[in-house]
């Protein structure tokens, strides 16, 4: 009972937050609402008994991704209001398309059936949840059965990094960079000149 209530609370706030993310006028508010959505989604994970995923969601998405969004929103001088021009104008058409899609999906999936052995097949790779903790169960899967995918995902991230550097890094001429070795090698004689200044004369 209390679990159902908590679920509806988290779910309702998450959905309301999602609506606010796309409808808030101020982009900073959008990001803040996004953080609210992340927290509530983490709550939903907790209810499912996936405490590790809940933690990761908060740490990674709130701690890193949302903060990055905030930085971008605050640092880039983009007129976000201009992006939203015509939002209301397209709303009826968009809503209609969405509604049609929803009805179609309901028709297809309303009578969803599962393969006879789907439940046993999908449960097969997971370790016994009663015996090991959530984190350990995930770790065992990712670093053993799914090791190949883990490595492949690493390669994808490497490509993303190489691509970002290749497409954006430019070596501009005339940029003065700090060269610590040269700074340390500078001696007093190179820069400092002691002159005798006659009084009243100046240099």
């Amino acid at each position, binding site marked *: 009972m209390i679990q159902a209530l908590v679920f509806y609370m988290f779910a309702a706030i998450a959905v309301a937050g999602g609506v606010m993310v796309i409808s808030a006028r101020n982009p900073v508010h959008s990001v803040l609402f996004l953080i609210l959505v992340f927290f509530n989604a983490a709550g939903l994970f907790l209810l499912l008994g996936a405490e590790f995923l809940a933690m990761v969601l908060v740490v990674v998405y709130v701690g890193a991704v949302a903060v990055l969004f905030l930085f971008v929103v605050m640092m880039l001088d983009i007129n976000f209001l201009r992006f939203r021009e015509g939002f209301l104008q397209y709303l009826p058409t968009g809503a209609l398309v969405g509604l049609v899609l929803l009805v179609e999906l309901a028709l*297809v*999936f309303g*009578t*969803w*059936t*599962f*393969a006879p*052995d*789907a*439940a*046993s*097949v*999908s449960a097969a*790779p997971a370790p016994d949840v009663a015996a090991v903790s959530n984190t350990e169960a995930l770790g065992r899967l990712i670093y*053993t*059965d*799914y*090791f*190949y*995918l883990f*490595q*492949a*995902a690493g*390669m*994808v991230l*490497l*490509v*993303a990094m*190489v*691509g970002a*550097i*290749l*497409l954006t890094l430019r070596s501009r001429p005339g940029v003065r960079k700090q060269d610590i070795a040269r700074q340390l090698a500078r001696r007093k004689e190179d820069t400092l000149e002691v002159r005798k200044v006659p009084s009243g004369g100046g240099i």
Partner: protein
Amino acid sequence: MPNLMPALPEIFLACAAMAILMLGVFRKKDDMRATATLAVVAFAVTALLVSGLGSERTTTFGGMFVIDGFAVFMKTLVLVASGLAVVMSVGFLEREEIDRFEYPALMVLATLGMMMMISANNLMSLYLGLELQSLSLYVMAAYQRDSVRASEAGLKYFVLGALASGMLLYGASLIYGFAGSTDFEVLARTFAGGHGAPHAGVIVGIVFVVAGLAFKVSAVPFHMWTPDVYEGAPTPVTAFFSVAPKIAAFALFVRVMVGPFGDLADQWRQVIVFISLASMILGAFAAINQTNIKRLMAYSSIGHVGYGLIGLAVGNAAGIRGVLIYFAIYLFMNIGAFAVILSMRQKGRMVEGIEDLAGLSKTSPMMALAMAIFMFSMAGIPPLAGFWGKFYVFMAAIDAGLVTLAVIGVLASVVSAFYYLRIIKVMYFDEPVESFDRPIGRAMGAILAVSAIVIVAFTVVPSPLVTEAEAAASTLFGE
């Protein structure tokens, strides 16, 4: 500890990619000759490792990775295509002064993704291989970042590619939702004959997966990006795009359709037949009006994908054998044609118009002869290799009772002969305006000669390729 031996070529190639990056970064020079050499060596060693695998079906990494005769055949094709593409790129990029050491590294990473796609035995490994390949290709399309057209090509490719990946993922999730597994073998067992037509949701899922894959092989109606990307990207990148990724994506397409969904062939055949017909017809008609040779090659490649899809629509060993032969020949035709396109330079400037080829037979007769061979072969004029490629596919279709498909395929290839022959007409019967810069370089000349010889030689001794393709195709059907 999983058995690493079947994945040894991939592991080697991944390490090679990182070694190339390290070399490039620590040399602190922005030229690509050293890294390109290393990349070619890496491709050669990987091809050796692949050929040492044997054609027995082996899975590893918990069934996520499979190696069989089909994979060995396709990986060899991809490695040859990538290796030749690197060789062709160096001279061009150096002359255009856009040579950077990351380029060969990206090519190696893209090839790694292609090999993972070919060996995918799970919807998840399929997706990761596909993304690794696609992400590298997006970057390569936008590689010439000071060019507006290249940036536009890269962005367009990225946005549409992301959409296609989304569709593929959505389809995969529906299939997982039904079967409870992403493993191809479990899926094949779930869908094995006797269950009758599965739930409509599964069919929707399969159609979404087909849509995503059709985008990657640029089949109609998911072809819109192809002409723009081929035209906008730097020419060596286009040469690479038109061969290796296409072969890899097609291998993946074949593996997914005849593997897990093989017993649902009656459900998906009509979809494949439709996209095959649409690709052949659009490839034939849309190319007629083109004046830019890169755009023409884009439409030509759409048409070729349509012919390959006939073999997939047939869906038996004979059909897949036809596909394998078709793409092996396609590789050499396309690489050769792009070697000519890359040599189209007047006064140090790249030209791309078909009219610029005018009178090539007088200014450089050997190049014109090679181009004529490639164009005749692409048009499917006997006795050149391209004819036999089409022959095996059409024969399989007729034997399987898909006569309409084969007839329309023949008609489409007659239409497409028009624009291939137009290039030959321009080269041989128009007056030369201005000759191309000479010499074209030793590597380029060698690639031209080898491709032309392969295409002619296939007619004389077809048996090595045909037997290899037959053996490779039969491993897919467990014979």
